[in-house]
């Protein structure tokens, strides 16, 4: 596996140059992307130019944790001069003239950007089937979804088409695809990483993170991106993350929430997750049962609050200043045709749900009530963390499903997120790490949830788990056969 950490070691030792690495990745992308549709835009020339600049810096003795390392970016982030679609036809040819804050940070550190990755339209979806440009495919079984919305990011890391990839998580969009693709995905605390330059989906829920091969790389990426940003008033300054290096869990108490194991899981998923908890116990952690009584309300709460915020954030797409314009008989007609044609079905559904929930007569009964129940869910976690340090849970109820299996029933698709939504509503951090496979050799993820801004504990436990297990080092057949 080409981790960020190992790549930096090789570059520092002069074993390989960034230009050689970048060349190799571009060749792999050319060979494998037609099958996987992970990349929407490959920036080959720019990547090579960034690689050569990195090699110059390395020759001068420069050293940053990402210098010369090839990474890729979910297409929800503004990248200066590079097409940014948001996974939507309404922005099919949009080219931003500025970088998102996190992109600027990664450029300054000398990371090499290989291109933009496929995702569900504006982050809305759990399979990448809502992309305006075709779904991405799971490298473990190309007839199956990679998960979503960061499906392109997860597929790219799993298929070794980049060392690491940026993603976003609003209701599970880093954790779930990471679990389905057998890679590691960290959702940060709301407020840890700047959202400036991220195409907004739900502004009280969106978080920026990375999909990586392991927890150590997750810490490296977080360190590169975190921090207060004057351009994002919802960022909070916190103590910087440290790359984990311990491997014992003797002082850690792990909570197992009964409500997450109350049925509805594929048997192989439950088996793998419970075995992982046994592993944590064997490593010295104290394991105890806890209760998060309002877990079952996460889904209805999320599918009122998120669409409400969507209806506001999508209002900017009106065909006036950027994006698609479909001419109509007058200004309003033009706006309506533009949005009717430019948005996909899921985005339109959520805009309408949100508009309804916020409309006069329904605002209190739906939206405000959902916000109150959100408080109950947040308090569940606060109470639990008075007794435990970390909560261990499944990520998704099943392994990767077949492309097309759930597209006709929105509620069925929403149920994919039952285990990830409550964490998003509470704004707390959680990581997905590989913990097993089902009988079809499809990956299963373990979710480790922490208190607000306690990414350190989450990463330390995840790292320790990965020192003891080797699920995260397994490669999909496609990688083994294409060397």
């Amino acid at each position, binding site marked *: 596996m080409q981790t960020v950490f190992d790549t930096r070691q090789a570059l520092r030792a002069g074993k390989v140059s960034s230009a050689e690495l970048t060349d190799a990745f571009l060749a792999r992308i050319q060979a494998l992307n037609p099958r996987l549709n992970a990349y929407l835009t490959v920036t080959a020339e720019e990547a090579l130019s960034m690689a050569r600049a990195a090699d110059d810096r390395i020759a001068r003795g420069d050293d940053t944790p990402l210098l010369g390392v090839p990474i890729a970016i979910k297409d929800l982030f503004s990248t200066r001069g590079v097409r940014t679609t948001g996974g939507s036809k309404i922005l099919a040819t949009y080219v931003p003239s500025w970088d998102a804050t996190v992109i600027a940070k990664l450029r300054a550190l000398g990371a090499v950007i290989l291109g933009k990755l496929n995702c569900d339209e504006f982050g809305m979806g759990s399979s990448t089937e809502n992309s305006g440009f075709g779904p991405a495919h799971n490298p473990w079984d190309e007839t199956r979804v990679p998960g979503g919305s960061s499906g392109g990011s997860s597929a790219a890391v799993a298929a070794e088409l980049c060392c690491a990839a940026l993603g976003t998580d609003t209701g599970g969009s880093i954790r779930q695809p990471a679990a389905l693709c057998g890679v590691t995905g960290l959702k940060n605390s709301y407020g840890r990483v700047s959202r400036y330059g991220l195409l907004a989906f739900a502004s009280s829920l969106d978080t920026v993170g990375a999909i990586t091969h392991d927890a150590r790389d997750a810490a490296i990426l977080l360190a590169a991106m975190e921090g207060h940003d004057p351009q994002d008033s919802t960022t909070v300054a916190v103590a910087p993350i440290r790359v984990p290096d311990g491997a014992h869990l003797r002082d850690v108490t792990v909570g197992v929430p009964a409500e997450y194991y109350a049925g509805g899981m594929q048997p192989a998923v439950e088996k793998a997750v419970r075995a992982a908890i046994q592993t944590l116990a064997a490593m010295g952690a104290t394991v105890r049962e806890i209760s998060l009584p309002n877990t079952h309300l996460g889904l209805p*709460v999320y599918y009122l609050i998120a669409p409400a915020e969507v209806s506001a954030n999508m209002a900017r797409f009106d065909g006036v200043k950027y994006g698609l314009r479909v001419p109509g008989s007058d200004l309003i007609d033009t706006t309506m045709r533009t*949005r009717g044609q430019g948005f996909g079905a899921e985005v339109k559904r959520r805009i*309408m749900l949100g508009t309804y929930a916020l409309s006069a007569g329904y605002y209190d009964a739906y939206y405000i*009530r959902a916000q*109150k129940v959100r408080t109950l869910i947040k308090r569940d976690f606060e109470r639990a963390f008075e007794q435990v340090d970390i909560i261990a849970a499944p990520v998704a109820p099943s392994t990767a499903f077949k492309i097309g299996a759930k597209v006709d029933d929105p509620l069925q698709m929403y149920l994919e997120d039952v285990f990830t939504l409550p964490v998003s509503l509470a704004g707390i951090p959680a990581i997905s790490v590989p913990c097993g496979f089902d009988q079809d050799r499809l990956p299963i993820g373990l979710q480790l949830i922490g208190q607000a801004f306690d990414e350190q504990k989450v990463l330390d436990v995840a790292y320790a788990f990965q020192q003891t297990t080797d699920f995260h080092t397994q490669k999909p057949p496609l990688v083994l056969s294409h060397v």
Partner: protein
Amino acid sequence: MHTLTASLTASDVDRIAHLSRLALSPDEKARFAQQLTAILDYAGQLSQIDVDGIPPTATVLAVHSVMRAGDTVSGQIDRHDALGNAPATDGEAFIVQAALDHDG
């Protein structure tokens, strides 16, 4: 006070679509009416929850009314960049249809 069992009619969907500025085909309207009803019905279970005395959570953070320390002017977006993605432009502005009628 409205009950939380939804059953969206065709005219409900028309009204919401217009508020959302979405032009929908008859097919879409029929499909969305059914799907939105199902989702709203599902969300309606929240009406059974006791939220007496519970404050709404608009943001999970403890920060309020964050202000910038000093508001200093630091350049502006280049006109060429700003117009770079314009669907229609004369090089100086975005060209759109009139918002208001002109009567003489």
